[in-house]
């Protein structure tokens, strides 16, 4: 455990010793701010229209918070390759991988350390969005439970993306290659459900299931379905497992 924390700390250190951490959080804040503003503007306009007809009232969770948080997945798609690209590639390029692999720690500890380091950075990004949500509590009365499940869903989905990015970074010395390949993989997982209408009902169900984003919908609605939790957790486990295997095979190939 001490080893994992040490590696995770070092990862965080690396993000914030260079401009990367600040730039990522800054742009995340900027983009999320924009999405939030747009969602808020629509919500406001619809509320005005609804105001004419007082029999119905708008649900702030469903109409505003859900879509705004859903939009962070788009930001993840673009920013996460930049988070994970250096995790292994940089160590390989600079030779520090020799230090890690000859230290009395297991590959799994190294990988988990890196994963938790990246997750902490991601959590810091998400923390920015709490400011916006907090403002809603000042001026309105949203329900807090669906917000908590949405954040849980975001963490799980982010973790899945990060584990995949970690794996891709372990395959190459070149950070640009790592970032591009990660972006392509994320995009494929994102759009895979769009193809579902092209095939029969069985294939369509499979493709829908594979899509990493589809599983988030229920979380945003305030539902914790074990089906989705299992999907994300097994996705993360697979990503980390592949990373372990990739690092191990790298040893044999030298």
């Amino acid at each position: 455990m001490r080893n994992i924390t040490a590696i995770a700390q070092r990862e965080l250190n690396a993000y914030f010793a260079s401009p990367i951490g600040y730039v990522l959080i800054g742009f995340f804040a900027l983009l999320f701010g924009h999405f939030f503003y747009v969602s808020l503007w629509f919500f406001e306009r619809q509320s005005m229209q609804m105001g004419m007809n007082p029999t119905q009232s708008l649900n702030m969770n469903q109409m505003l918070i859900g879509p705004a948080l859903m939009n962070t997945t788009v930001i993840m798609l673009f920013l996460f390759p930049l988070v994970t690209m250096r995790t292994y590639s940089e160590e390989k390029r600079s030779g520090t991988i020799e230090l890690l692999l000859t230290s009395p720690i297991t590959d799994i500890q190294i990988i988990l350390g890196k994963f938790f380091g990246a997750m902490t950075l991601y959590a810091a990004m998400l923390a920015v969005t709490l400011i916006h949500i907090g403002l809603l509590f000042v001026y309105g009365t949203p329900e807090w439970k669906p917000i908590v499940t949405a954040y849980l869903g975001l963490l799980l989905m982010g973790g899945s993306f990060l584990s995949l990015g970690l794996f891709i970074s372990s395959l190459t010395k070149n950070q640009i290659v790592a970032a591009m390949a990660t972006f392509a993989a994320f995009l494929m997982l994102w759009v895979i459900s769009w193809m579902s209408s092209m095939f029969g009902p069985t294939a369509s169900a499979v493709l829908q299931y594979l899509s990493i984003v589809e599983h988030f919908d229920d979380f945003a609605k305030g539902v914790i379905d074990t089906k989705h939790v299992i999907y994300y957790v097994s996705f993360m486990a697979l990503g980390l497992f592949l990373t372990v295997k990739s690092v191990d095979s790298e040893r044999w190939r030298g």
Partner: protein
Amino acid sequence: MIEVQHVSKKYGPFTAVDDVSFRAESGEILGFLGPNGAGKTTTMRIITGYMPATEGKATVAGYDIFEHPLEAKRRTGYLPETPPLYPDMTVREYLRFVAKIKSVAGNVNDRVDAVMKKTWVADMANRHCAKLSKGYRQRVGLAQALIHEPEVLVLDEPTAGLDPKQIIETRQLIRDLAGTHTIVLSTHILPEVAQTCQKVVIINKGKIVAIDSPDALTERLRGAVTLFVQAQGPADDMQRALQNIAGVVRVNPADVRGDVSSFDVDTETGADVRREVAAAIVRGGWGLLELRPMRMSLEDIFLSLTTEEIESEDLAAEAVVVDHTDGGQANA
């Protein structure tokens, strides 16, 4: 204690290390000599558990590196060819990090301070690794290898990139460490081996060429002395004149430029023929431009070894003699 038994490492059809066996006793310094690409780094990476061997077995401090990697690694300090520094960390932060992952028991700060003092990097404690000079990087790398007080130290070219004063200090440090540590170091500098090591393993093309004490090795190199002679005059006449001097074994023309010729003169062991050579040139009425004993560098020996495909240990001794010509050409 380090024991390497019949270790081989293959990359597809390419064999980097071929059936290498050697042993370093506790408290001993073993020097690993060889040209670049000989398999020194690969062997060291196998001993340190960075990569597994294709065949054979390596035991470090009583633990098989493949069967019990964590136990073995806990007892090994490793300085790779490029010191594995994180540019974004200060020296102190970096050493604290290494101390943690090497599971240093007790007070980490005290240990970091002690090791920084030992390797003379304390004055750079708060400087970022990216901003260190090559010499400091190398010494921080050494500090990193020492931090968990390992029984076994594996140092890949520990003095590369240091200035002469630092080289002397580092060698002294390595000698001081020897009593309590088993040390394997690689180098291609012969005097370094002579000054620091008790045992020398010479490796070429992945195979061990010789295992010997440095004294025996140096003796082998001193066996015959070669003189480098450059003179102005007819090349054939001069060569004949040199050949006739008593104590000269062989005269090899090295270079002819216009009427200036260079020769490598191999002499018998213990014979100093410099006076006779000078006299012979003057007697012929030619102009003596240069006369000096040739220094042998280990790299020269390996150059001849690799070009002539000599692999057995017995032939290696002869290669030393043959090598004088190659060395001469390189110098001329």
